[in-house]
């Protein structure tokens, strides 16, 4: 048992830290804009800047344009990015999910075609998974893709697709054989978003952003080569994608949460409620400390998981990763709001605390226990696949 970082891991941390110090994200003030459109444009410029310096997709193999660093170093990288206050990359779906998936399941020409654009941010990807009738029960999805000569003809409807209006590609999960048992007849396609027959309707989210969208497919024609992985074997690809999403986010998120806690302490010193600051209130101190404790433990837990994953690979334990951090984050955000007192009601402007970011984070945390499998689905997965409880 040894939890210290190796000299080369330390050196890697120093290197990341030095680059971020010389290239602060503050050069793009629009990254913090309240307007999503402005934020996405700044995000593209920021991703390009990081990409030019070789800091995008650090965990990807070198042959595919990454740095080929270990999982530990990947986490170190995310920690340093968060510590520097730099934002999440605009193409986060592409980097964390699509890239690893294409590297594992894609054909050589797909890798050559898609990976460079994912890294540079020129091609933003969205996911076409959930449907109005297929949420938690994703395998009941109905969007059809029918082979018509050398093409697939796609018809159906997808929903909750983040960044779809800014995306050039969609990772689309479709039913290719309705006769097969439901998990078997599913396939995955790479669909250009400018294909005729696709309609995008942005949906306004709980915090006012129009980040996610509804997608309508009306006889959308894509070539057979759009298939990722094998025909009718897409469920396996979907599960791998979800494991990646659940784990990567959880393990790299600890420092982001540490920053929230630091912000909470600042707010507790500044914001007055009932004539005094939260930091002087014993109950508030206890609540903040509880958040600090849970965030520290996410850090310890992440270290344990890195070791596990390196030895045994990803798996159903990714549900534990997600369940723990998302529910903890919601408790933390509740505490953050309570610290602000009446200031928790002002969403922007000079009377808002930290330009309203704590409120945005509070609202956003409500999505965390829903996307990528709700907490209830994570609990079912843990019970069924890890504990082996009867169905």
């Amino acid at each position, binding site marked *: *048992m040894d939890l210290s970082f190796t000299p080369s891991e330390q050196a890697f941390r120093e290197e990341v830290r030095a680059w971020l110090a010389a290239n602060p994200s503050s050069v793009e003030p629009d990254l913090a804009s309240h307007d999503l459109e402005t934020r996405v444009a700044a995000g593209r410029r920021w991703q390009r800047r990081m990409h030019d310096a070789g800091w995008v997709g650090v965990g990807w193999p070198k042959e595919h344009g990454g740095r080929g660093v270990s999982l530990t170093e990947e986490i170190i990288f995310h920690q340093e990015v968060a510590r520097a206050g730099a934002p999440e990359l605009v193409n986060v779906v592409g980097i964390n999910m699509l890239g690893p998936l294409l590297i594992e399941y894609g054909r050589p020409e797909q890798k050559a075609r898609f990976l460079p654009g994912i890294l540079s941010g020129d091609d933003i990807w969205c996911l076409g998974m959930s449907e109005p009738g297929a949420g938690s029960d994703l395998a009941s999805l109905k969007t059809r893709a029918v082979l018509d000569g050398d093409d697939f003809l796609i018809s159906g409807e997808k929903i909750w697709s983040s960044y779809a209006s800014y995306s050039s590609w969609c990772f689309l999960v479709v039913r290719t054989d309705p006769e097969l048992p439901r998990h078997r007849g599913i396939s995955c396609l790479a669909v250009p978003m400018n294909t005729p027959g696709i309609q995008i309707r942005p949906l306004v989210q709980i915090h006012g952003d129009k980040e996610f969208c509804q997608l309508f497919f009306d006889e959308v024609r894509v070539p057979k080569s759009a298939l990722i992985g094998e025909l009718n074997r897409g469920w396996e690809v979907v599960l791998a994608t979800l494991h990646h999403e659940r784990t990567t986010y959880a393990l790299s998120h600890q420092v982001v949460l540490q920053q929230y806690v630091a912000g909470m302490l600042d707010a507790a010193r500044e914001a007055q409620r009932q004539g005094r600051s939260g930091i002087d209130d014993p109950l508030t101190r206890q609540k903040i400390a509880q958040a600090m404790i849970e965030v520290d433990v996410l850090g310890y837990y992440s*270290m*344990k998981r890195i070791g596990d994953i390196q030895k045994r690979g990803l798996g159903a334990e990714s549900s534990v990763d997600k369940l723990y951090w998302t529910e903890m984050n919601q408790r933390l955000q509740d505490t953050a709001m309570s610290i602000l007192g009446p200031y928790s009601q002002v969403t922007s402007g000079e009377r808002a605390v930290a330009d309203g970011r704590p409120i945005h984070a509070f609202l956003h945390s409500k999505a965390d226990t829903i996307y990528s499998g709700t907490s209830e689905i994570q609990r079912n997965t*843990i*019970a069924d696949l890890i504990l082996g409880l*009867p169905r």
Partner: protein
Amino acid sequence: MDFDPDVDQQMIRDSAGKFFADCCPRGETLKMAEAAGTCPDELWNSMAGLGWMGIPIPEEYGGLGLGFIELSMVLGEMGRVCLPGPYFASVVLGGLTLMIGGTDGQKRRWLPAIADGSCKATVALYEADGRFLPERCATRAQRTADGYSLSGTKLFVLAADEADLIVCPATEDDGRTSLFVVEAGAPGLARKRLPTLDITRPLGELTLDGVVVPHENRLGEPGSANAVLSRVCDFAAIALCVEMTGGLQHVRELTVEYVKQRVQFGKPIGSYQAIKHKCADLHMRTETVDAAARYAAWVADRALKGDDAALARTASVAKVFCQQGFYRSVSDAIQAHGGMGFTWEYELHLYLKRAKGVEVMFGDEAFHRERVIESGGRKS
């Protein structure tokens, strides 16, 4: 970055696991607790024969000179079976207090007997005011011609009635609080066991009525009681976390096994989501508690070797987190077991009582949370 024990550490765990599987089959520790509130001498002697009491004690003082991680391998297995007996009091409290607070001569005098199990030690932390650290210690140590005369009352003392050596903080005439080693047979010392919620870990009351303590039994420097004990209690809190992890793992196994075989409405209750979700939470808590305890044990190991930097913060973080997870999980486990969970002969209640006992030892949640916020927001 490797969270797994190394080969030697794993060997200690395996051997401890096998030892308890043989000596403490299910239900055995409940019988021990009912019979005597401690483990039988035979079991104690077998553990001593394996060298377990000497794990953290340096070789020059008769121990094995191993670290806190090795100690945690044994503690985890003891926690798994809820072992009664003075191991925790003697090795973690008594042993570490002597190691941290004693002079070289005092270590030579007492540690070898603790290490070979022939002497059981404990530390009398609490008094009637409920403080576990002797910031204001009502027990007095009056100077006499050849030593001290101790008078006062100590409460909630682990292994009080079994210990051969009791380390007692007491306030000297000049107001400084020092540690004194009181030997079991000393005239004026009365001990009694308090009827205790956690029957596997009975607490005692000590009355010191002019107990004569020779000068050489004052541990280390005068006035060192608070500093020594607060450090010992950090180690002790982490040791409890390790025990709790073992207990939690057992509770998870028991519960998963039970809900798979218990049939109601024609199906195993483990097939119902209401039960599944409790079990999933039990698993999540076990895994996160395990991470916290193992990380803390690693920090404690480094602290024993001289790097104290993260000890206090980590002890507080781990103590709060582990005891919350342990108590909530045992409560859920009892609920999932229905009437069986409320039954004396089924061992689950031992873990509930452990969880409640642990909560108040070496600082409760409020104490440790306050320490965490005092230690600041940006750590890594």
